[in-house]
């Protein structure tokens, strides 16, 4: 399946928390492909897509972080008005719920890549593929 592995890191809200994560990853030679930080009043969860999820998880754990893994979906979106809308339209018709998403622009600048977390991942991939959207396989995203 064309799922992408995202790792999540639990962070207390305190100065230096995020910096320590990036230092650990830097020292391990891990490249961050995409990221998003979700915060609540008490704590934050950093979501990352990296070039080597397995290794990242290991070094983070070794340094005392609580690390989770989640399957997300990466979709190629034409970088023009209405690009994202067309995707959401297809999903909403089929009652798929988006729990969260974040986006980044591909190097060529022609496409944006949007990372989605759905309530029903497999079904969402099926719908997107059938509707003609490009769902990027994990390896592709890790090595962007």
């Amino acid at each position, binding site marked *: 399946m064309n799922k992408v592995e995202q*790792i999540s890191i*639990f962070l207390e809200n305190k100065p230096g928390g995020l910096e320590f994560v990036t230092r650990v990853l830097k020292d391990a030679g891990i490249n961050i492909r995409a990221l998003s930080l979700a915060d609540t009043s008490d704590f934050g*969860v950093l979501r990352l897509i990296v070039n080597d999820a397995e290794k990242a998880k290991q070094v983070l754990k070794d340094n005392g972080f609580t690390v989770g893994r989640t399957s997300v979906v990466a979709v190629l979106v034409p970088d023009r008005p209405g690009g994202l809308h067309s995707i959401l339209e297809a999903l909403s018709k089929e009652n798929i719920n988006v729990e969260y998403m974040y986006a980044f622009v591909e190097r060529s600048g022609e496409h944006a890549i949007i990372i989605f977390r759905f309530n029903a991942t497999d079904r969402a991939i099926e719908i997107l593929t059938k509707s003609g959207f490009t769902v990027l396989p994990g390896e592709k995203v890790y090595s962007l």
Partner: protein
Amino acid sequence: MIYNEEFETLPREALEALQVKRLQQAVQRVYHTVGFYKRSFDNAGVKPDDIRSLDDLRRLPFTTKQDLRDNYPYGLFAVPMSSVVRVHASSGTTGRSTVVGYTRRDIDTWSELMARCFVMAGLTKNDIIHNAYGYGLFTGGLGAHYGAERLGASVIPISGGNTKRQIMILQDFGPTAICATPSYTLYLAEQGEEMGVDMRSLKLRVGVLGAEPWSEKMRGQIEDKLDITALDIYGLSEVMGPGVAMECLEAKQGLHIFEDHFIAEIIDPETGEVLPEGETGELVFTTVTKEAFPLIRYRTRDVSRLVKAPCRCGRTLVRMDRVTGRSDDMIIVRGVNVYPSQIEGVLLNIPGIEPHYMLIVDREGNLDTLEVQVEVGEKVFAETGEVKVLQELSRRITKDIKDYLGVSTKVKLVEPKTIQRFEGKAKRVIDKRTI
């Protein structure tokens, strides 16, 4: 099975009548033989004759650990040393040790009460008891030993320590019951496993475990690793030693206090007021038959609660909850007494929570605040890594604490291994209030 059917199943009314009669005798005796009690009763303006009912007990002053220390070593003995056949002493880690004495009759009573405990655990004279409580000044070893002999069981007086030898004896001598502290029992089980011994296939079927606080979780581990039933026994050297109260095999729900010898009360540790049945507070004991070292309203600092409801096993004796903490640790938040152990109890019932926590008490304006810091376990997060899972967890903790303890808290989830670890006595409370 019941060892002393008559006294363990007395109707409550008859039991309480017996307690009043024995209490009156005990009060007269201590007033006239122990200088400390005469002074303390006189200071409180109460005479032995004022004690006419169990309710009058609350008119008597408390006796504390400090009183015992002040009268070190023999100042509270109520008989001359010629009548004392044995002494025991506490370890005295937090000061002078406390010394207790026994007459021949006291030893006799103690042996019977320990025999009652063993029978309560389903043991008979056909059992072989591996007694790993320490023999010596500590009351555990000899207390259990005499009780086992009274019952007619075979005792292996192995005492504590020398774990490898203990494991060999557990295999070769075929004991059917073990007496030890819960932590040592677990240690034995784990060491045995490490040595490649199938600890579940031993002949052991019952553990009579006590002398330290333990949790249901630990009980589960012990029962699982050794394939036994693990029962809680309670006692303290000041009151007698092990055998003040024991959990029955039938219900495994609270420990029966031998009320024909001890009167138990639960008090608010702050005000000293006696609390109604069923409320949690500090256990207070009065011994009504002890000769050498009688105690009146001794404050144990142990936190528990009492339930008089009839028990499945047929005993009418009141039951105390497993001791979960010390009243010294109690905090008062917006007028509600909170014991760290109660919070721990709530946390242990929530899946995915590690039993590492810290309580921060503070005051905002005129209002006390209680923050519960809990470590986020690997398990709860690893599956999904979702924010909402953590928020739900936080809400659940807040709600459960409110439901069980009636106090509102602010829960703060913290990173794993950031809460200090303690060897021995844990410090769980930081009180920042300046009053």
